[in-house]
């Protein structure tokens, strides 16, 4: 066995495993166990219901779209914060974290106030035929809001460590600006960008507090899966809530695995030769 500077692989690995088991896996196992109470027949009935399907679709599709928007906007904000020096930069930087700090219900109320037909923004959007509050668009807005800091915060250190001479090399070799961005900068950022995307995605799928205020919760239209779960809980249908939870969890897991595979592919150059 090779000598290491910091010993104790055995004990630290064991501890990490136990901790992961207690904090993450045990509750999930309990959830799955609870879900079995509904029976196979009940499960199929539940998941094939059009209302359930619509809610799951809105939750997952909305989350993917929100995370995509955040990836683009987050990259832009991170770029501005890292590359440029301007008055108020620190304040700007601090503001990025606000969606983390705000209780989500408060965020929901704030967004609803803005986008309601008589709100500050809704008032102007309404005549243009754009309805945000009480529609799927509102769900998207709330999901974008809560997921925003993830992409910025994961990208910032990587952006800061990008070497300027690589861009200069590209320019000197004859690359146009857009070529430098798409062929050099973006591929180097891709693994980190995907990490931020995955975090924002996970956050948006699970988001409840801010979404329900702005969504209006119209069944089949603007109702998200977590809300359905809460409704089942309120009707003391614990097994049904758990089953729906498991379904949401599995679908999110599939999405995250796909993102993770993409990330490994985009990061293939960082793997060292054996």
């Amino acid at each position: 066995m090779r000598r290491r500077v910091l010993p104790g692989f055995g004990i630290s690995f064991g501890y990490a495993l136990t901790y992961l088991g207690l904090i993450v896996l045990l509750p999930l196992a309990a959830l799955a166990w609870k879900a079995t109470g509904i029976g196979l027949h009940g499960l199929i009935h539940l998941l094939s219901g059009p209302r359930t399907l619509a809610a799951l679709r809105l939750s997952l599709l909305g989350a993917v779209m929100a995370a995509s928007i955040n990836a683009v906007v987050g990259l832009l904000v991170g770029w501005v914060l890292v590359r440029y020096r301007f008055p108020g930069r620190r304040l700007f930087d601090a503001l990025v974290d606000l969606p983390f700090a705000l209780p989500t219900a408060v965020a929901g109320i704030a967004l609803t106030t803005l986008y309601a037909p008589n709100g500050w923004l809704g008032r102007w959007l309404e005549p243009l035929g754009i309805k945000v509050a009480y529609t799927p668009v509102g769900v998207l807005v709330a999901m974008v809001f809560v997921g925003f800091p993830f992409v910025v915060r994961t990208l910032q250190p990587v952006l800061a460590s990008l070497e300027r001479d690589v861009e200069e090399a590209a320019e000197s070799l004859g690359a146009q600006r857009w070529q430098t961005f798409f062929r050099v900068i973006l591929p180097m950022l891709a693994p980190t960008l995907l990490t931020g995307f995955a975090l924002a995605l996970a956050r948006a799928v699970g988001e409840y507090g801010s979404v329900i205020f702005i969504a209006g919760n119209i069944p089949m239209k603007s109702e998200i899966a977590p809300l359905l779960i809460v409704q089942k809980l309120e009707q003391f249908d614990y097994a049904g809530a758990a089953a729906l939870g498991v379904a949401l969890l599995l679908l999110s897991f599939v999405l995250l695995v796909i993102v993770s595979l993409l990330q490994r592919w985009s990061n293939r150059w960082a793997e060292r030769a054996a």
Partner: protein
Amino acid sequence: MTLELSHLNRRFAEYQALDDVSLSIAPGEFLALLGPSGSGKTTLLRILAGLDYPDTGSVLKDGKDFLATTARERNIGMVFQHYALFRHLTVLENIAFGLRVRPWRKRPSRAVIRERVERLLKRVQLDDLGRRYPAQLSGGQRQRVALARALAVEPDMLLLDEPFGALDAQVRVTLRRWLRELHEELELTTVFVTHDQEEALELADRVAVMNNGRVEQVGSPEVIYQQPATPFVCEFIGKVNRFLVRRNGDRLSAGGWMPDGDPWQGRFTEAVAYVRPEQLRLAVPSSQPAWEAKLRHIYLAGSVAHLELHVDALDQTLEADIASEDLSRRGLHAGMELRVAPRSAVLFPREGQGATLNQERWIWHARSPVPA
């Protein structure tokens, strides 16, 4: 192509990076920009590459304004100090980059690109490493990839920023020779920046020595070494002994040693003299003026031995270099007394304690060089 740089000035917030720099670069020549860090050599290189611009001054390429051309249109191959390889691309993709980003009218076909990249890989002796990523290469290999990438666009001029700075001594010497051969083969105008005088003298056709944003001297390595134009060039290039020479009646002397002749005809009372370690004679007959010196230490460094000699008359320690095999032949050992005198020297007059008058430089040689 001929480049004519005239009166370039570049100021950064706290210091003057270039101070009235003029220089011409001839087609096919191998030019070294040599100087300590902060001397402005990298700034000058970046201006040639189009990555920086002077505040005032002009750069003409064959008579046309070169500064009006953007970096991407200058057709220059640049090798960066830390190579600046695209770490997400394989070696092959790195080398092909400059060809692939061309607008499709000028872009060679896939087959042509592949053929050219393969040829370059062979040239830089990395035939089997094309599929590797930069992270899987050693420093010397990365350096050669950077060079191949710069050459792939068939540039008019090659610029290298401290090309061997990050490599260990052995790889450095090998790559240096290899680069020199490559230059002779391609006859490509090449400018490289270095702080290593040995590297500059060994590689370049012409060396521009820079200090504090100014060009102190431009010339062939022989001229730079044997006829340094300023005290800075004397001290920066190679090792050198420095001592003061004062006027004593109608002759100049330093601790009993006197250079014969006086080109200044009594105008200056003081001069700074520089003598290279290999230009010190160790056993001067008593009929000739010399210093009584005590041999303090002998440092054997492979083929050369460095001798530390203390001269009481100068109250100074001088260094002399001789071939190591001469040590025992002459019976030299620490503690012995020797009569020492310069074989040649470079002298710069001074007015009082003031600055040296570099245009009054005097290169002195002993009249009858007696083999020591």
